[in-house]
């Protein structure tokens, strides 16, 4: 099957040396940390962007920073591509390997090293799951704020790679706003420590640069993250509207009125139906659009804030208002929303877009999205973080139908271009990966991209780290190893 997205052509010389490379790796870390058997490699051939798969040369799962350093040094000296991997939940193909690459997975680096409440910081290894940080500090009244939908599985290392967000980042920010320090292995195996428990680090803002760099600047093995005091209580409220436009306008007015709830999530009718069928969250079925607005604080605070939000919602003709009456009910409301991707996956194949638009453009972009989907004869469910304009149209298709698969990808590309043209960007929290790589020129000029690529080269001169990702394969600086041409399974 031909594929829209190209990978770099595997380096034949590396493939030919596979047995020797595996023998060398075996000298660098214990057998239990090295995977070379074909069947055992299969789980690593893709991530959550499952339309594309490539078998890696080998997978290593180091148990220490020193082992990561040894492997990276070896790969750099031998010009072997390296694919860093957290839990493999990337929706943009950020962790998809290539045939001549070694995957370095951080899953065995899974310890919480230190919890420091007086400095409100936790030091964790990169393979610790997002949710386990909050779980570890919950009893003491703290949490780690970024909460991607995949938080049960995704790792903090992956979160840093993609600068992950989540439903609650409207108030608390994304990973970059909650990261204080990292220990990172550089391309040559040297280990650097940047930042720490202080609120800002010295020199150029390397933490800011590393966050969201999609594993192209180094491999983070430890992170120091901020902990935040848990709110006394939180209450999600459902608001049902007759139209998406009314719901969108309500969002704009809530924010414009100076009220920043902790989350404002949007679902359109198809998304409501899918999620309700899966989670039985009690979502109203007689509305065209639903907002989940979450407020937090003491009861008195939440009452005060909700009173104002309800007043605004009434002005926009809200049809249903349902406040959660218990923790169980609140959890159920969120379960519905957070299982949107999984629930959708049960009824169809889907790809999830991640463009972000200025708040004033929400209604316009929703309308145009429908037009694009209709044009390709597909279906779409919209479920997204409305408070910060981060759209997530789920384009439904049948992966067994090559024609429809192609249409879905093309519709996705059209939607992302629409987001950029509306003043937004290609990706708010999922990352570029391979998925959006070839659209980068729609958002950036050649000079913009060249500047980014030069910075990348300052960290990884041979371009061995995750080389097929983020930057269009053509027009690179020519500093990366191997061949720039696409491999032969790829459509021209």
């Amino acid at each position: 099957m031909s594929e829209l997205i190209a990978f770099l052509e595997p380096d034949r010389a590396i493939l030919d040396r596979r047995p020797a490379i595996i023998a060398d790796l075996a000298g660098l870390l214990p057998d239990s940390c090295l995977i070379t058997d074909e069947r055992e490699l299969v789980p690593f051939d893709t991530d959550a962007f499952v339309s594309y798969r490539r078998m890696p040369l080998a997978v290593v799962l180091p148990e220490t920073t020193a082992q990561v350093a040894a492997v990276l040094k070896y790969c750099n000296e031998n010009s072997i591509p390296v694919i860093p991997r957290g839990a493999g939940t990337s929706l943009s193909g950020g962790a998809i390997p290539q045939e001549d690459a070694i995957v370095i997975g951080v899953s065995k680096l899974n310890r919480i090293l230190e919890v420091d409440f007086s400095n409100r910081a936790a030091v964790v290894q990169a393979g610790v799951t997002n949710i386990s940080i909050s779980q570890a500090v919950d009893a003491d009244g703290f949490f780690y704020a970024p909460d991607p939908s995949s938080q049960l599985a995704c790792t903090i290392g992956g979160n840093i790679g993609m600068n992950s967000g989540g439903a609650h980042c409207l108030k608390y920010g994304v990973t970059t706003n909650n990261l204080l320090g990292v220990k990172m292995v550089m391309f040559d195996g040297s280990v650097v420590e940047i930042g720490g428990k202080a609120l800002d680090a010295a020199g150029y803002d390397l933490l800011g640069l590393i966050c969201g760099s999609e594993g192209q600047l180094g491999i983070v093995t430890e992170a120091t993250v901020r902990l935040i005091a848990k709110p006394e209580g939180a209450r999600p409220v459902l608001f049902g509207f007759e139209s998406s436009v009314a719901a969108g306008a309500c969002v704009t007015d809530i924010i414009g009125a100076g009220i920043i709830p902790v989350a404002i999530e949007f679902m359109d009718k198809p998304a409501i139906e899918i999620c309700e069928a899966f989670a039985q969250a009690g979502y109203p079925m007689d509305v065209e659009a639903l907002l989940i607005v979450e407020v937090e604080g003491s009861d008195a605070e939440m009452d005060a804030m909700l009173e104002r939000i309800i007043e605004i919602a009434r002005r926009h003709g809200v049809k249903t208002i349902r406040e959660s009456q218990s923790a169980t009910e609140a959890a159920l409301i969120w379960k519905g929303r957070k299982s949107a991707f999984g629930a959708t996956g049960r009824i169809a194949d889907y790809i999830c877009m991640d463009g972000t638009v200025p708040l004033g453009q929400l209604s316009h972009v929703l309308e145009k999205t429908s037009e694009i989907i209709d044009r390709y004869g597909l279906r779409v469910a919209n479920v997204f973080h409305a408070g910060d304009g981060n759209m997530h149209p789920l384009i439904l298709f049948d992966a067994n139908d090559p024609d429809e698969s192609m249409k879905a990808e093309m519709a996705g590309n059209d939607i992302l271009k629409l987001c950029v043209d509306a003043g937004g960007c290609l990706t708010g929290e999922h990352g570029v990966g391979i998925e959006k790589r070839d659209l980068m020129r729609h958002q950036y000029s050649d000079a913009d991209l060249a500047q980014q690529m030069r910075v990348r080269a300052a960290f990884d001169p041979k371009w061995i780290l995750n080389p097929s990702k983020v930057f269009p394969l053509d027009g690179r600086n020519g500093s990366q190893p191997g061949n720039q041409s696409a491999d032969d399974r790829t459509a021209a």
Partner: protein
Amino acid sequence: MSALDIQYPESEEAIARIVVEAGKANRPIEVRGGGTRLDLGRPVQSASVLSVAKLSGITNYDPSELVMAARAGTPLAEIEAALAENNQMLTFEPMDHRPLLGAVGEPTIGGVFAGNVSGPRRISAGAARDNLLGVRFVNGSGEIVKSGGRVMKNVTGLDLVKLMAGSWGTLGVLSEVIFKVLPRPETAVTIAVSGLNDAEAAEAMAAALAMSVEVSGAAHLPESVIARFAGGSLKCGPATVLRLEGLIPSVEVRTGRLVAEMGRRGTVSVLDGDVSAGLWRDIRDVTPFADGSMKPVWRVSVAPSAGHQLVAALRLKTGVDAFYDWQGGLVWLRMESDPEAGLIRQYIKALGGGHATLVRADAATRASVAVFEPQPKPLEALARRIKDQFDPAGVLNPGRMTAGM
């Protein structure tokens, strides 16, 4: 440096032409906004100046989107006035360095972001860099580059936006910045706890930040500086001050809870209105050390629990006055005479790390003492490689952050 050649480009293209010319002539340029922070950092070795002061004006502002775009030379005062008209604000409370440095001129929005200048609310709302969404700049080769955009969430490519924040004009000349703005809180009050020593204050602040009351400012003002805050209206003795902001009913509830908790530690009073606002402005602008002198002033960033330990250790060795912001993690030090850079940095390292910036000192001192924290070798090498990728000829603000870079 007698006959300074100052150029005031009015467009990105004009900036690019100047930078290209400077590169060809091998004639480095000092990059300026309003010139109010020129004495912060190492003295730049250059005979010509590029000021963005005439590249001015708000270019995009729709209050309901909580985003503003402005040309780099736009006066901060103009930005704040436009925001105030819509009951909004810059949430990171940028410090005004003029009183401390004895500088004149108008701070610009470009300068604020180039220095990543942030204030007390940094503990809850992030620094300038957290609120910067997009930039346009001219790099050292004269290329016009953009990064980020005008949306709240953006992971499209490498985040050069963060890198530009706090790079002090050494990587590029900012021409336009796009940043997040937020509604002004409906009300703000300050809970002041009297009588705590520095160590007790650190504990009290950590306890306050561990409560779910959303403290938006946490500072400790020892007895030696207290009279110089809020026009001397605070009681004698040290004060630990905690700010709560938000909707009126919410702040009322939280004030009650925080007062109850802090009442167990010391005598509590509640300040509001202009007194509260003035107090935090003084903390932001380091008013007690704005004494018209050139006594060295350091800005130290460490783990919150380490701040008071640093000061205690220094007091045994040298004459130093200090107060604390950011829950104790931001320490402002005024040295009696010698800057004591080696001592301060040695102690910071011993206390778990952090960094010190010599914010005020005479030019001779700033040329001989590392103003910004020296980096470990591998990080300094990396910083040099990054600088080379933006400004290969070393045209922009050479030596401002690091000697020979």
